[in-house]
């Protein structure tokens, strides 16, 4: 790891000012992607701005018809939250499937979303539930936030403060995990809220998280696993790497989508 300056501001305004002053500075939340990347010298920020001291960024509450989660809430916070378990159990389950217990004690929802790893879980939940990402500057709807592999709509110095998830009637996540890294080889988040039906896919697409519209149309007729029988997205849009090729990933997306719908409908 290359040397860097370390800052631990106590509020978002200070953090934004520090980011503005240090052009090559990076935000560190739980550090579970950034620190390994820095160890490999794939990232070498001049300074780290640690959001760890900001209580204001942590916490989970139900606000009207949404669950609002502070950006520094850990995966363990989300997985064990009574509010999340009651309102969106599929989201609690997703958090529980990230990494392992020690990783979940440090990794945060804000960090995961800001990084937009193509195999991360939260991007699927954000798009699959129609979430709004709230920053120190504005609100961004999930579809406009994730702009491609490791890329987001965040500007320089913009800090995610909260994520607001509308409460669905039904929702669930199914994931085929890479057995070593526990990242998604294919993860599918499905939800139904009135006539809004969403199928969001992570881990598989060659450009990161995406909505699988053919599956959404099929589920609009009847929200049941059977509606997706025999369906899988075209392999041409899927990622190929040493873990799985595009055809296999496309197949897994179909299987995970059916499992997610089954879980969401209690079948």
């Amino acid at each position, binding site marked *: 790891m290359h040397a860097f300056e370390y800052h631990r501001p106590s509020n978002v305004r200070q953090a934004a000012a520090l980011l503005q002053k240090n052009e090559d500075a990076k935000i560190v939340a739980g*550090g579970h992607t950034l620190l*390994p990347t820095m*160890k490999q010298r794939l990232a070498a920020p001049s300074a780290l701005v*640690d959001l*760890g001291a900001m209580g204001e960024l942590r916490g989970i509450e139900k606000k009207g018809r949404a669950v609002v989660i502070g950006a520094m809430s850990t995966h363990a916070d989300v997985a064990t939250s009574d509010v999340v378990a009651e309102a969106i159990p599929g989201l609690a389950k997703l958090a529980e499937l990230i990494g*392992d*217990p*020690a990783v979940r*004690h440090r990794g945060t929802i804000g960090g995961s979303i800001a990084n937009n790893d193509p195999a991360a879980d939260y991007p699927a939940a954000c798009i699959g539930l129609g979430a709004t990402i709230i920053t120190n500057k504005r609100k961004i709807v999930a579809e406009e936030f994730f702009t491609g592999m490791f890329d987001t709509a965040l500007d320089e110095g913009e800090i995610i403060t909260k994520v607001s998830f509308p409460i669905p009637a039904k929702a669930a996540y199914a994931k085929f995990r890479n057995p070593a890294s526990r990242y998604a080889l294919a993860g599918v988040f499905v939800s139904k809220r009135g006539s809004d039906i969403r199928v969001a896919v992570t881990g598989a697409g060659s450009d990161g998280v995406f909505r699988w519209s053919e599956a959404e149309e099929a589920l609009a007729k009847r929200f049941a696993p059977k509606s997706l029988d025999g369906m899988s997205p075209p392999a041409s849009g899927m990622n190929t790497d040493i873990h799985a090729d595009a055809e296999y990933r496309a197949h897994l997306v179909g299987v995970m989508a059916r499992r997610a719908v089954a879980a969401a409908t209690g079948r």
Partner: protein
Amino acid sequence: MASVTMTVNGKSVTADVDPRTLLAQFVREHLRLTGTHVGCDTSQCGACVVHVDGKAVKACTMLAVQADGCEVLTIEGLANGAELHPMQAAFREHHGLQCGYCTPGMIMTAVDMVNRLGSDLDEATIRHELEGNICRCTGYHNIVRAVETGAKAMTEGGARQAAE
């Protein structure tokens, strides 16, 4: 350099460190608490698990400066003098180790498991909860038995203490 102050195994520690010092490095090289091992250095293997503010974390993937103001518990802080912590005693009783390299992390994870889930742990739960700790000797069978026994002993010990 950055100044950090934290409580490690009940003692307050203050030091000036290079900000890139990992918590694992800090406890091993600055505090000479070498019970915390570094196996993979990529947050996969769990040999470096310590507790920060009562929660198991991988000390290879946390900066020492991030633990500023925190309570840190390492494997050295578990025993009560010469008396082993019930989880340590269970690992000895069941020989929950082969080479022993992963053992400190296994034990710290096991104690965290009991803290979160209570002491009535079935085998499936224990195996699932140990997914972030790797034993390259593959000696999982005795580790799982040790965690099961240690978990029960932790409540019995707690109940005895409460009764005294």
